[in-house]
């Protein structure tokens, strides 16, 4: 599973920065049928965690009510240079992980 992540570039210490993440995932609801009339099993990204230098800053629990290719836009305070790590998992147990380096000035 791939994801696109955008973080406000070159923040100063104390700035509020915006984090946007879009994960490529069908977010299958479990209500759709395939060509044979069989139900396609539910499979959604049900959990996403964002850690900033190993401290959890954001967590999302999602269901079939989130659109395909889930997109999230949230904020955090730039405190120190380091790394943002995103981890997520879907109903089939498939996990995804992405990391973004962050350089904080000032």
């Amino acid at each position, binding site marked *: 599973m791939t994801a696109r992540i955008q973080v406000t570039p070159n923040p100063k210490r104390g700035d509020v920065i915006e984090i946007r993440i879009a994960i490529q995932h069908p977010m299958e609801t479990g209500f759709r*049928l395939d060509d044979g009339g069989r139900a396609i099993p539910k499979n959604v990204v049900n959990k996403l965690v964002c850690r900033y230098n190993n401290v959890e800053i954001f967590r999302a629990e999602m269901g079939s009510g989130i659109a395909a290719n889930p997109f999230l836009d949230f904020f955090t*305070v730039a405190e120190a240079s380091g790394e943002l790590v995103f981890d997520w998992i879907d109903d089939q147990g498939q996990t995804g992980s992405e990391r973004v380096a962050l350089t904080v000035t000032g």
Partner: protein
Amino acid sequence: MLKNIYRRGFLAQLLAVCAWPFAPARGADVGSESVEAMVRKVTGGAKVETGRVKLELPVLADNGNSVSLKVNVDSPMTPANYVKSIHIYAARNPRPNVANFYLGPRAGRAQLSTRVRLGGSQRVLALVALSDGTFWSATADVVVTLSACYDAT
């Protein structure tokens, strides 16, 4: 040959759609709990006040499969006073609890955007839990032209 297979698939789907009202609900989690009960589970019966929360959704959504949603909470987001969690409910969805988001004092700004699915025109509810133990909510009415979830395509 190809045409036959296609037709068979179509007929099977048609049958399945017709049988839909009689079929057992797919997934045990569907339609088993009301939004009120879900809210009570979060609040523990505490009073939910209106205000301080802004829920932004389009008034008219052409396609229920992807509707932009934005929640903004009036909170200083300091270690002493911050937003703990944001819960989104859409009562007419087969699974009304759309999502739960957990923030903390390090968020800096109590704002969140995402894209949701809506199974029909309805009033969407955002429930916010603050660190001081109070609960706040906001609603937004959305008219959905093409609803998600129920098209068996």
